[in-house]
């Protein structure tokens, strides 16, 4: 029961930290561009403002349009709750393994895309079309990448994968490197960052995620934005905790958790800096360059899986 209680606390921590990561990335990006930038808690203020505001909806929108923000938010949150953040003693990770996490993210995306198609403007449909196009290519790469980790650990339970990493001697497996590279590419595509999508654009030629939520306002928009921030934190936690798990608590003890929290913040801050730097250096690419980008991810993931089953299993 204590474990479930902790799982709840950890999932609330996801909610609390998600806007902070986005604020941090924005701040670093601003500094890199010689701007002072908004304070890093600006995303909290934005969310607060949106929740307080009145929601407006097109009268052509159906009930699904109103329900979608809640479904998207809850599904994303549940997916995040199954990824170890501070501790690997996590019953939600046994409830939802990596395949379920991918499924929950798929559920969120399904409703996000449907909401985009609901209002009679071409923007929403365009965004939905592009989102499903990108995710169709990204999803196999993501699954293959996590599968090579799962096969190594003989478990699809993420907590077990992390624990397996901690137990073994820290030697470098080729499959891990391939999986890491693939997962980074997938994370960029799935969270809608440059060079695949630009979260701060509102140009019809370039936007994907923003096009789908263009018609949302008020609390609905707040939920959609928060879900997007959660997704970024989810992928960041997946990357840092699976590939650099050192420091994560293996049982729920205050001292270990405190240590895990400090290390986690450091790791996430570094990842945020890396994201900001790459977004400053790179330009967004054309939509039809994205398949090449994601095929590379799939290829890397498959190579990782193959190098695992061919080289590492017998050894």
């Amino acid at each position: 029961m204590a474990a479930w209680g902790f799982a709840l606390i950890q999932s609330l921590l996801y909610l609390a930290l998600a806007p902070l990561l986005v604020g941090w990335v924005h701040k670093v990006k601003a500094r890199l561009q010689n701007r002072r930038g908004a304070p890093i808690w600006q995303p909290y203020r934005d969310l607060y403002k949106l929740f307080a505001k009145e929601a407006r909806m097109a009268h052509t929108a159906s009930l699904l349009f109103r329900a979608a923000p809640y479904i998207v938010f809850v599904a994303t949150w549940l997916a995040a709750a199954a990824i170890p953040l501070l501790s690997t003693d996590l019953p939600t990770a046994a409830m939802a393994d990596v395949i379920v996490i991918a499924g929950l993210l798929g559920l969120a995306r399904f409703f996000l895309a449907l909401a985009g198609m609901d209002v009679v403007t071409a923007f929403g449909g365009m965004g939905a079309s592009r989102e499903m196009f990108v995710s169709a290519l990204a999803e196999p790469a993501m699954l293959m990448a996590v599968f090579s980790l799962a096969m190594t650990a003989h478990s699809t339970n993420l907590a077990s994968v992390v624990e397996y990493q901690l137990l073994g001697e820290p030697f470098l497996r080729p499959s891990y490197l391939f999986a890491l590279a693939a997962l980074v590419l997938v994370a960029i595509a799935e969270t809608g960052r440059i060079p695949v999508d630009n979260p701060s654009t509102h140009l019809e030629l370039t936007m994907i995620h923003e096009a789908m939520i263009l018609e949302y306002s008020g609390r609905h928009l707040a939920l959609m934005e928060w879900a997007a921030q959660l997704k970024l934190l989810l992928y960041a936690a997946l990357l840092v905790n699976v590939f650099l798990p050192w420091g994560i608590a293996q049982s729920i003890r205050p001292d270990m958790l405190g240590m895990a929290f400090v290390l986690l913040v450091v790791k996430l801050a570094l990842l945020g800096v890396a994201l900001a730097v790459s977004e400053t250096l790179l330009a967004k690419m054309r939509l039809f360059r994205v398949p090449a980008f994601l095929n590379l991810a799939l290829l890397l993931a498959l190579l990782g899986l193959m190098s695992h089953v061919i080289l590492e299993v017998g050894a």
Partner: protein
Amino acid sequence: MSITLALQLAEGAIGLALLSALVSFFPATIRRRVAMPLFTLSGLVALAAGLVTLINGGVATAQLPLGLPWLPWQVRLDVLSGFFLSIIGVVSFAVGIYAPGYVRGFEGGKDSLRVLGGFTGLFLAGMMLVVLADDAFMFMVAWELMSLSSYFLVAWHHDSAANRRAAFLYLLMAHIGGLSILLGFGVLASFGGGFTFEAMRGASLSFGWASVAFVLAFIGFGMKAGLVPLHAWLPEAHPVAPSHISALMSGVMLKVAVYGFIRFVFDLIGTVHWQWGVAVLIVGSLSAIIGVLLALMQNDLKRLLAYSSVENLGIIFIGLGLALLFLAEGHPLIATLAFVAALYHCINHALFKGLLFLGAGAILHSANERDLEKMGGLLRRMPWTGFFFLVGSISIAALPPFNGFVSEWLSFQAALQAWQLEGGVLRSIVPIVASLLALTGALVAATFVKVYGVAFLGQARCRAVRRARRVPLSMRTGQGILAFLCLLLGILPTFFIDLINAVPREILGQGLSQVSAHGWLWLTPISQQTASYGAPLVAMILFVALVLGLWLVGRGARRVRLGDAWDCGYAPPTPSMQYTGTAFVQPIRRIFGLLFQISDGVETQQDGRRRYYLQVVDRAWGLLYAPIARWVEWSSRQVVRLQSGSIRTYLGWTLATLLLLLWLVV
């Protein structure tokens, strides 16, 4: 004792189906009141028979007073038959409830409702006889009964030439497939020394002959199941039939083909080889990926659903291929897991494809429209159908917490055990198949976002759709039953897998003993350490969090203000400005373009207006069907040369044939 009861129930179900066929030829008042209820009852009894068999296990046999003097028809009910009998039963039950309202739309039309009702009953009886048959002879007769009666159902709207063509193609392919199955049985019968399945099980075959029998059966049953590259007939034939029949054909008849394959390969041949597994895996993954891509390109809703059946059967055969591979390599536990995944997907596909075809039928019934590009906004016009169709779409897109996800999860779990195989080649085939399966899953989601978004959301693109009315209660109930089952199988997988476990226990010699070892909340196919999925918990948390979120966020919040959609300061948006289905899939069409035969361009019409046209054709036609058709035509033209018109030549040929036969015989 109770297994004999189950067999009696199954015989009763067949009797009821035949009776429903007979009653359809009575005067209209009786037909309307009695025929479909009998059909529904038949489905319910078949479901009961199947469930009793699955729960109790065991085998029951009986002899029917039919057949040849030295080969009376044997029926046999075991858990494999029982499993498929319950699939037939549950979909027929829902279809039986749905059908009266749907068929009423055809009253007063020129097509005879007697013929429709009669062949529907025969069709159901044929399918049930196939799964009960215990000898090759009866199997083939029942198989033909199923194929022929469904031919008449496909040809029911026979006034359009395209429908007649589709029906003929269906008949032709069904018979080529049937011939192949017959030859396959022939191989087994000649080694086993008899046409009964009992004798065939005892046959000991060399690898070569076993492979011949396997290939023949794979072609025959694969043809019926619509596997690539033999699939091209399926999307022609299935959509042409009335929608409730399409639901039966796609949802159930394809499963009968899967039954035939399992019975033939896993039960009758018995000893399997890894080469077969690889062949089935390759064909299965090709079917899955090509099926879904072609489904994505369709704008005719029923055709799209038919192509999606090709994809789903591909997924089922991926499961069976994995089972063959692991079984041949000596890993029976993982083979069982893959086998259970395939069986679970059989039920799932029957449920959600049945549901989706019934939904398509409801749209057809109330708006008389099959073209997606003319639909839109149907969720407001038909809220219940819209809701059930959404459930079907989420289920088929393999998203939690619905049923499609469970079978996908099980398939991935089986594929993840590939490291146990011997040799790098086999070990690396499985991950590639898994990645194709993942790609397929993502593309299915795109397909059903397109279908649902274009048909049910947005605004109507034509008048008939704008005025669509909700369908009668009976039709909604039929859909509702299937939608409810989709959810039930999604959140309580442990119960259903415990039931299904009887099948691998009989066929493969063991079940998944660990599956519910940690309580009904946890689905643990191999062990708790390897993988677990708490489906009821996921569903519950999703539900509670949703309610909580609605309460927290929506509580006390001001009413949502309605206004126009943002129009960039130009003219207000009109329905024709919405994204179309064709536009939606354009990016995917562009990158997978090589797989289709695409012709598009801008043409000037007679009135001077310019119009964009686009045609996406299945490559199977050009690569496989057309050359065979040309070859058949060419060879028949050669035969025509015999026909000189002179009696002397004909007599000469007769004499020559006689001499040849004498020489051969004596």
